[in-house]
């Protein structure tokens, strides 16, 4: 028997919260692993702090620990569960680092836990830059000329030897964090210092820069019998110098001859063998000198990675699933290829299409970030697209990003480049940014030759020429009219990936007319199949992409089909939570007897696993692409309300009879300020006073009426895009100006000048509350959960910690809240999910907004209460009633007692040191964690530790409070002092605390505008820099980069000192710490909290 029978239980470590460089691809890989190992009959124990994952659904493991991913916590889990083995290669860098810690601390030995899928030695060889370089040299592979340094002196020594420019890479980091280029000595000293600091072992690798070389990656698998296969080759469109995660990448490699490719393949196998990855997947990155073909190894990851998720989706070969099987003893030839069902997994997939991955960034949400791409990853998500050719794939990829662009220019968005001179554009494209692709397109439109563009940006000629084909076609189309185009011309344009929207722009017609005319010409979409084998064998898995060819491969369905529209690329405000909802809908609807069709373009997700739904369409989520699938599949319904704004924006344009659940009119009703106000008035539900405005003058008139502070936001956006709180007229004017500018750029499809700005009185110090609920077509309403936010109203709900059950709301208040939600659901005729946000001020409940759709908190509520709201909602939308679902056992009573769950947001500030960390109404978190325990304090403490900030258990806490926060801050300060902490504070705060009987040990000097001290003593920045502060509590007063507070927050980010920017969080921390320090750490699986009969031994 190939399956190992000497182990019975396996602990899988997840990757924790979604952060830049580690996103939902590890939910995808972890979910696959859990599934496979359960199927194989092992007892699966899972540790992951991220409640928004599918893998932490209680049915995916035997014991699911939603606990902080820290060595001591894992030790406690190991102590409780006594697993036979630990599998750390599917949870990203986080899991790998933890595994190393557990090896080094002797925990695995002590408990007799075997590491499978990788060995400590292999991980060390791959991860330690010096060991890796030595290993590669041993097997005759070249690495970049380089040296290792642990101190600045060593670093300077290395650079003297190899010369500038260099790239600096800290050891043991994820997503290239802290990695940077240096061209001058000054620059070198700065980035080397940052790198030494970023590396947990204070080690940096300094490499000779090979900027401009071509970059490739091979996804490799190996089994214990030493069979090695390449799953996928990937070529970066961007040359070396841009992190792979931030590069546009293409599969398969396009510009390597077979001779070179085989050399690279041999090198990759030599590498995985030397490093000693005995089973599983690894990726090996190469740089190739475009002039000589010289190949060097950049790095290898001895684990499943973001690229392996991409490679899996790109080829149909499920790397994580196979890796899990290999880890428990199987050989590649003993595993069947899922897609063909008859050929083995011991082959190399070949494909007959081109896959393009394009990253999506969030610079607009992070003022202060430069927007320049480099060796450190900054993107928050990615879209993948499949086309028969690169031009088609590229244009589909661009429209998949949903950033208001329809393809490679030829759309209204191109206007922004037309004013720039050729020379300016040529200068711009030398610097990699999110705009570069479009700038290149514009240069091509102007006739600037490919050679010149290549010299400016280093992108390979082949890619540029393929882009030129798009531009040439565009120039041709510009001279055409709707009626002049022949069938062949239509087909050629569509084969080059032009969207109907682009054609409408070029032909100066309405998109609907373009579609109509195109279909009349018989140019209809054909769907092809992703089958791992370029059609050599019959594929049984319906995983499709659209193109314009002769033959369509869609097979007729058997059962009625339900289509679920996914949420597209991850972005701040719309991430894994919505993918979770879509996946749940798919599971639930399949249970309800439908054939499920998933449409999505995000390669990181579980939803785009071909196993999740009956049929998968890897397609952009634009109206055109969705209508094409509807035409092909003829579904009975389309679910639009679970994937966030992406599908919701399409709802009103889809055939109304197909839209499941709440009618699009109700969605509009909730969004249309005037109608919403009158609705609330009719129901006598209080709202903060407000109004809508298009101009500053209108806005000013509203503020005159309602008073300051006011909350200003655009309609129809998720994640608090461009939302601000203004305290006076001047700030209002700035905010209005900014909003108009955003609208002008045509960003974020939902934001435009004809959708007005909403202005509301901002309720200071109010408690913000979220409610998730479901109503069915019979009018029955059920509450999912009431979530009380820790941070006060004004901090975006996505960035705020929140708790279930609400720790500070009276039963009366909760009753009022539920009743309001019920009335709103009734009045909006909700069928499915309804999320309502309230603000509670001095016992009075105000409604802020209602969203008849899935909210970000749905998975958290499910994990906290045991009610899988998204599944229930999907079936309710498909026509079942809550009563029916209750009878089927699909709607259990929520568990509301016995534990408290706290969700905490995880913010990306470490990546963007220049961005102010103050929380506000604009959401900036990338992910979330959950802490669950007996009490709020313990759960909150766990959530802080899980979020990576941690809480100190002794030392100095630095306070700097805005005047309005001083009263409340006093309470927190008292708490900390009682726990034995020492306080430091700014003069004003110190005076206040001292006069209220709380002793402040150190009073820091004040800083001038230029950052110079203007009073005597050590200033806060120095104090933090010296490592003397364990926690910073800094609530903002002045704003902007010149304020004192900004420097303090900057210093705490730079030195990784946890920093709380609201007084509410400080109070929660004091409460949490008190309980944390007086209780021993306990861990319990979710199954136990939810009364699911945990099988813990």
């Amino acid at each position, binding site marked *: 028997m190939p399956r190992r029978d000497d182990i019975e239980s396996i602990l899988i470590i997840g990757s924790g919260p979604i952060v830049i460089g580690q996103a939902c691809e590890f939910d995808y890989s972890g979910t696959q692993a859990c599934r496979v190992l359960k199927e194989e009959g092992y007892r699966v124990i899972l540790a992951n702090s991220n409640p928004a994952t599918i893998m932490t659904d209680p049915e995916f493991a035997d014991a699911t620990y939603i606990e902080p991913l820290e060595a001591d916590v894992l030790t406690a889990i190991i102590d409780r569960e006594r697993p036979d083995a630990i599998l750390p290669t599917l949870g990203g860098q986080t899991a790998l680092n933890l595994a190393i810690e557990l090896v080094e601390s002797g925990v695995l030995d002590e408990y007799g836990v075997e590491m499978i899928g990788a060995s400590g030695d292999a991980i060390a060889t791959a991860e330690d830059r010096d060991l890796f370089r030595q290993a590669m040299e041993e097997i005759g592979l070249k690495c970049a000329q380089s040296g290792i340094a642990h101190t600045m002196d060593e670093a300077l020594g290395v650079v003297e030897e190899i010369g500038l420019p260099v790239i600096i890479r800290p050891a043991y980091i994820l997503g290239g964090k802290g990695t940077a280029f240096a061209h001058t000595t000054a620059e070198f000293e700065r980035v080397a210092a940052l790198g030494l600091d970023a590396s947990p072992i204070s080690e940096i690798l300094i490499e000779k820069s090979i900027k401009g070389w071509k970059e490739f990656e091979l996804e490799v698998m190996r089994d214990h019998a030493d069979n090695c296969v390449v799953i996928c080759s990937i070529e970066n469109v961007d040359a070396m110098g841009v992190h792979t995660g931030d590069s546009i990448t293409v599969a398969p490699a396009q510009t390597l*001859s077979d001779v070179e*490719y085989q050399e690279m393949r041999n090198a990759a196998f030599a590498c995985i063998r030397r490093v000693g990855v005995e089973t599983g997947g690894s990726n090996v990155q190469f740089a190739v000198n475009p*002039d000589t073909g010289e190949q060097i190894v950049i790095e290898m990851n001895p684990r499943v990675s973001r690229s392996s998720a991409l490679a899996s989706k790109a080829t149909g070969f499920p790397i994580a699933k196979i890796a899990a099987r290999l880890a428990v003893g199987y050989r*590649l*030839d003993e595993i069947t290829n899922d897609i063909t069902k008859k050929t083995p997994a011991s082959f190399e*997939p070949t494909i007959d299409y081109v896959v393009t991955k394009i990253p999506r960034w969030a610079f607009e949400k992070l003022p202060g970030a430069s927007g320049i791409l480099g060796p450190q990853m900054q993107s928050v998500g990615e879209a993948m697209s499949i086309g028969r050719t690169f031009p088609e794939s590229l244009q589909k990829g661009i429209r998949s990003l949903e950033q208001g662009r329809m393809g490679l220019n030829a759309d209204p968005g191109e206007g922004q480049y037309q004013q720039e001179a050729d020379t300016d554009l040529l200068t711009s494209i030398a610097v990699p940014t999110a705009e570069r692709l479009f700038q290149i397109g514009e240069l091509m439109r102007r006739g600037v030759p490919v050679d010149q563009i290549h010299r400016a940006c280093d992108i390979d000629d082949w890619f540029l*020429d393929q882009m030129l084909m798009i531009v040439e076609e565009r120039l041709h189309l510009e001279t055409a009219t709707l009626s002049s185009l022949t069938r062949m011309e239509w087909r050629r344009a569509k084969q080059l990936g032009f969207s109907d929207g682009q054609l409408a722009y070029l032909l100066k017609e309405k998109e609907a007319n373009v579609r109509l005319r195109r279909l009349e010409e018989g140019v209809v979409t054909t769907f092809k199949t992703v089958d791992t084998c370029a059609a050599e064998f019959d594929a049984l898995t319906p995983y499709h992409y659209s193109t314009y060819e002769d033959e369509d491969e869609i097979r007729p369905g058997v059962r009625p089909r339900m289509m679920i529209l996914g949420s597209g690329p991850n972005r701040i405000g719309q991430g894994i939570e919505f993918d979770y909802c879509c996946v749940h809908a798919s599971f639930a609807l399949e249970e309800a007897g439908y054939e499920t069709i998933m449409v999505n373009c995000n390669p990181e997700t579980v939803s785009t696993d071909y196993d999740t739904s009956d049929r998968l369409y890897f397609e952009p989520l634009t109206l055109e692409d969705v209508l094409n699938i509807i035409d092909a599949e003829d579904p009975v319904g389309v679910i639009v309300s679970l994937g966030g704004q992406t599908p919701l924006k399409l709802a009103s344009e889809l055939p109304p009879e197909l839209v499941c659940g709440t009618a699009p009119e109700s969605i509009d009703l909730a969004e249309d300020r005037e109608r919403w106000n009158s609705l609330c008035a009719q129901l006598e539900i209080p709202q903060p006073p407000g109004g809508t405005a298009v101009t500053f003058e209108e806005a000013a008139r509203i503020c005159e009426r309602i008073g300051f502070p006011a909350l200003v936001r655009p309609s129809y956006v998720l994640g608090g895009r461009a939302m601000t709180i203004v305290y006076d007229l001047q700030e209002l004017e700035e905010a209005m100006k900014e909003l108009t500018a955003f609208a002008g750029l045509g960003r974020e499809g939902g934001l435009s000048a004809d959708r007005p700005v909403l202005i509301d009185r901002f309720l200071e110090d109010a408690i913000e509350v979220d409610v998730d609920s479901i109503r069915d077509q019979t009018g029955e309403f059920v509450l999912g959960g009431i979530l009380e936010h820790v941070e006060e109203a004004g901090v975006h709900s996505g960035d705020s910690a929140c708790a279930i059950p609400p720790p500070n709301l009276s039963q009366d208040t909760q009753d009022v809240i539920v009743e309001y939600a019920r009335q709103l659901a009734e009045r909006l005729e909700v069928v499915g999910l309804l999320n309502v946000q309230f603000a509670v001020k001095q016992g009075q409940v105000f409604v802020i907004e209602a969203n008849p759709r899935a909210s970000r908190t749905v998975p958290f509520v499910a994990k906290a209460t045991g009610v899988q709201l998204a599944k229930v909602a999907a079936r309710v939308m498909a026509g079942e009633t809550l009563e029916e679902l209750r009878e089927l056992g699909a709607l259990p009573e929520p568990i509301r007692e016995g534990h408290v769950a706290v969700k905490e947001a995880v913010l990306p500030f470490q990546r963007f040191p220049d961005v102010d960390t103050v929380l506000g109404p604009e959401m900036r978190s990338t992910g979330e964690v959950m802490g669950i325990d007996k009490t709020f304090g313990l759960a909150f403490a766990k959530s802080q530790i899980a979020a990576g900030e941690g809480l100190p258990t002794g030392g100095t806490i630095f306070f700097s409070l805005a005047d309005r926060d001083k009263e409340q801050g006093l309470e927190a300060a008292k708490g900390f002092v009682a726990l034995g902490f020492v306080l430091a504070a700014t003069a004003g705060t110190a005076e206040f605390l001292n006069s209220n009987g709380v002793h402040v040990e150190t009073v820091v000097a004040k800083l001038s505008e230029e950052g110079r001290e203007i009073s005597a003593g050590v200033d806060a920045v120095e104090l933090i820099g010296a490592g003397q502060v364990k926690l910073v509590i800094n609530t903002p007063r002045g704003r902007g980069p010149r304020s004192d507070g900004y420097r303090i927050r900057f210093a705490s980010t730079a030195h990784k000192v946890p920093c709380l920017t609201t007084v509410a969080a400080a109070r929660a921390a004091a409460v949490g710490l008190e309980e944390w320090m007086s209780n021993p750490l306990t861990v319990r699986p979710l199954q136990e909290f939810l009364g699911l009969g945990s099988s813990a031994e």
Partner: protein
Amino acid sequence: MSQIREGALVLSDGATFEGELIGAEVDVTSGEVVFNTVLSGYQEVITDPSYAGQIINFTYPHIGNYGVSNADVEARRPFCRGIVVRDLARRRSNWRSEGDLESYLMAEGIPGIAGIDTRRLTRHVRENGAMPAAFGSASLDLLVEAAASEPGTEGVDLVSSVTTPQIYEVGQGNFRVVAYDLGIKKSIVDQLSEIATVFVVPAHTSSEEVLELGPHGVFLSNGPGDPMMAGQVVTAIGALLGKVPVFGICLGHQILSLALGGKSYKMKFGHHGGNVPVQNLDTGKIEITSQNHNFAIESGSVPGVTETHVCLNDETLEGLRCNEIPAFSVQYHPEASPGPHDSRYLFQQFADLMTSFHGSIS
């Protein structure tokens, strides 16, 4: 943009594909259409003499991206009848490139057709088998006629059209190896010449002529078409077996098998690609192999051998070793080019076999 030459591809069963003609200008070309699934290595494929009589349909849509290079040529000229691609690269990009594919096709007289739904064609061939086809600028009627009268590869002698007219010598190794050129790839000669002085001989060379060269081993190369049409070589090999170690690749494997009394058959659409998993039954290890064959040897049909390799996709016989005499062969291409290098050990195995047969050679 240059003038587009419209054209069509017609299969013998009537299926028609519209496209754009590329490469050498012809009114009609015909051959048996097969598909190849490699992602890179188009030039090696096009110049592999085993494709004599065939039209190659590339499943990967972009062909020509990295241009052409003399180093990637596998024979003195290409012998295929034409190529079918989805998209021919306009601009090539690679430091090794010495020219573009389109010019190469023109210079070598190979016609092509682009803009084809090559996946539809592949699925058609997969479902209906490799079949005669024709394409060109001629009228549809003429193309239909050409496809219908095209004999395909079964029962046709294609080897005589590709074999070397004269014997030639390559390499300076200690072993002397006589290599039957049944359509030999240059990379096989290169691999052999690393272990031996190689005398490449025409397909019609008799066993006596071979023995006169005093070989330590005889090699049987790859080549096009039906092994049953290579009777003369089968006879010659029959006479050499047991006298010198023999190693056969692809058609050479089939010929060895026939000489031993095995049976060949034509496969539905064959194996053409660089990703075929083959298990070495001696070691259990998997080799990812480069393959190109439409005919195969029936498993169990060859007396006196141990079957050493099997294709994991469809259990086709991929290799055998004679039990009593020094001879072995594989159906796939250990020389790769294009394709993985997983199986190059077989050339060393040939050297070892010669050593053990003759004792060490100095």
